[in-house]
């Protein structure tokens, strides 16, 4: 699935990295525990999370994930958005709660990232 489609399905606003909307996404992972994220095969996956601090950006970088979606209308601080822009990382925000956002993407064919 293209990230464009993800944006459309979740009615999301783009906070940084707009040029990556043409990229393909392979899978998704929804979680507020960063060490859990790092236990899974999450390369090129989207991270859906309710946390909005800078360690979320670091986790996605370290795990080679391709984008972040903040759920429940959460918007990080200007500092975190600026950091994402500097890293050229696609970050979006959606009004859906984590459960709904994951459900919508799953219903449209995106699959979960699995244990390695």
């Amino acid at each position, binding site marked *: 699935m293209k990230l464009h489609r993800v944006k459309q399905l979740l009615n999301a606003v783009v906070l940084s990295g707009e040029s990556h909307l043409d990229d393909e996404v392979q899978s998704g992972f929804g979680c*507020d*525990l*960063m*060490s*859990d994220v*790092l*236990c899974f095969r999450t*390369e090129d996956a989207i991270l859906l*999370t309710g*946390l909005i*601090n*800078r*360690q*979320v950006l*670091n*986790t996605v*970088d*370290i*795990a*080679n994930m391709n984008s972040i979606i903040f759920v429940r209308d959460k918007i990080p601080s200007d500092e975190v958005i600026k950091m994402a822009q500097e890293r050229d990382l696609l970050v979006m925000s959606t009004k859906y709660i984590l459960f709904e956002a994951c459900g919508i993407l799953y219903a449209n064919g995106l699959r979960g990232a699995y244990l390695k």
Partner: protein
Amino acid sequence: MNYKLAFEVERGDFETAGDASRKIKRTLQQLGISNKIIRKVSIAGYEGEMNLAIHSLGGTILLTVAEKEIDLTIEDRGPGIQDLSLAMTEGWSTAGDEARRMGFGAGMGLPNMQKNADHFQIDSKVGVGTKIAMKFFL
């Protein structure tokens, strides 16, 4: 040819925690190491770096890239770990609220470091510190 890189990580410095591991990742990319190994080293490094910031009194990360292996050594100045087998148990954590708010405290970091490394050795002494030595074979 041996390539070495060292980083200091301060206790509670959550503003810069993660910088060392990201630098390690970029360095390994520049050295032409395979993505598979870079991911393992970066994940183990990042978990170790966050543990230094969250649980230790501060410490160092040392990366050595040799011809056949990458060594990652993470050593701190205390407080040390009382029960190592408990600390290595998935799900066991003493992380406080601040760490949990940032998404840490699942009790998965140390076990995941062990999983990613080809060789993993942890030694700890209460009142002295903890040392984790990891090897990744190239």
